[in-house]
């Protein structure tokens, strides 16, 4: 049986983030959907689950913290990776308390987030949730 493709949602209101990440992750065999609006991302979350969600924290409308809270409530097995351009100890702590897999401050190189995603994927596989 073929391995199930790992699905990833990227949410960042900076379009450049999705533009950079989506093609690289797709090249690595991931199924990727990219959003710049938290409202649209939330609508999509209502429709389906993702294995991994990568979300920015500071966005217009619903902020990333609210978004990741909703994702974790609806899909506890989804691994959430937070990326932020305005990192503070408090937001990092709050993110981890909410069960995020990792916290990445911007700027970061593509290789760094790809490595974090690979670790999240490995964890899911190890836990038998992927």
């Amino acid at each position: 049986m073929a391995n199930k493709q790992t699905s990833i949602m990227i949410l960042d209101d900076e379009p450049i983030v999705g533009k950079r990440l989506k093609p690289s992750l797709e090249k690595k065999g991931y199924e990727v959907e990219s959003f710049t609006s938290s409202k649209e991302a939330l609508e999509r979350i209502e429709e389906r689950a993702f294995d991994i969600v990568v979300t920015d924290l500071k966005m217009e409308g619903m902020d990333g913290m609210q978004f990741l809270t909703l994702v974790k409530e609806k899909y506890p097995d989804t691994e959430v990776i937070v990326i932020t351009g305005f990192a503070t100890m408090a937001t990092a702590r709050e993110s981890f308390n909410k069960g995020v897999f990792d916290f990445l401050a911007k700027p970061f190189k593509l290789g760094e987030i790809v490595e974090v995603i690979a670790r999240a994927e490995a964890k899911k596989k190890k836990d038998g949730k992927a």
Partner: protein
Amino acid sequence: MKILVMLDTGNYSRRIIKDVARLAKNTFADIIFLGVQENNKKPAKSLVNGLLKYQQDLYGFFPPEDLPYAEFTDRSWRETGPGKWLLTSRGMKEFSLHIRTGSVAREALALAAEVESDLIILGCSRKFGCEWDGEMNVPLRVARDAPCSVLVIKKVGKAKQIISILDQSVVSQDSLELVNQLVTLHDAGLKIVGVKEKKGKKDKIEKQMVELLKYYNELGIGAWIKLMNREEVQDYVTASSREGIVALWMGGRESLLKKLFSRSMVDKLLENTTSSLLILR
């Protein structure tokens, strides 16, 4: 974020650990400490002990429950090439110590490229400007030639302002993000100073400033903006450096600042400013 910290046994290196810890605590960055020795077939004991002490000092700034780095399982240095040694630990984030043999600036630049660091941090002695182990050349060469942004810490502690000097060169997303992190970290005000050529180019730089203002407005960050002629910049930078960290965008081949702050000017800036200096790329 990946931060490369250049360290030696000087007091200026010891002093910056607190600032590095503050940045690491907020950003959960991967941290790389680099020590360079002149000539040795094995890691010099004084450098090893110095780096391990800095590591313990850094860890000590974290509440134990928030420490994202692990202790080393053993302290055997792995030889990664001639004159190169590595000690690494993986907690939630990676912490590694590198010892290299050779020229300090050259080894730092090479390692920054190898590990793809986002930022290089180094301190410098303020006794005669900005020296590293008695040499002005090290901070200057790293600031000038690094493949990523560089923070030269002259003044430790919180900054009231981040004064960013912008010309018509390309402003990278990475550099904006680094400025954002520093504004957040220091809870500082942000000043963006646009530099225009004597004739023309005003439209381009003004357009870029408006775009930046829009970018910061959308993020809810208040930014104070000023446009000035290139001949005013050097005095302005020297004067405003008293207020906080001076950030210079030095990227892009067409960068006016690159021309304006030639080798001798970066040298002067490092020598004359009292503040820390951030070179953005």
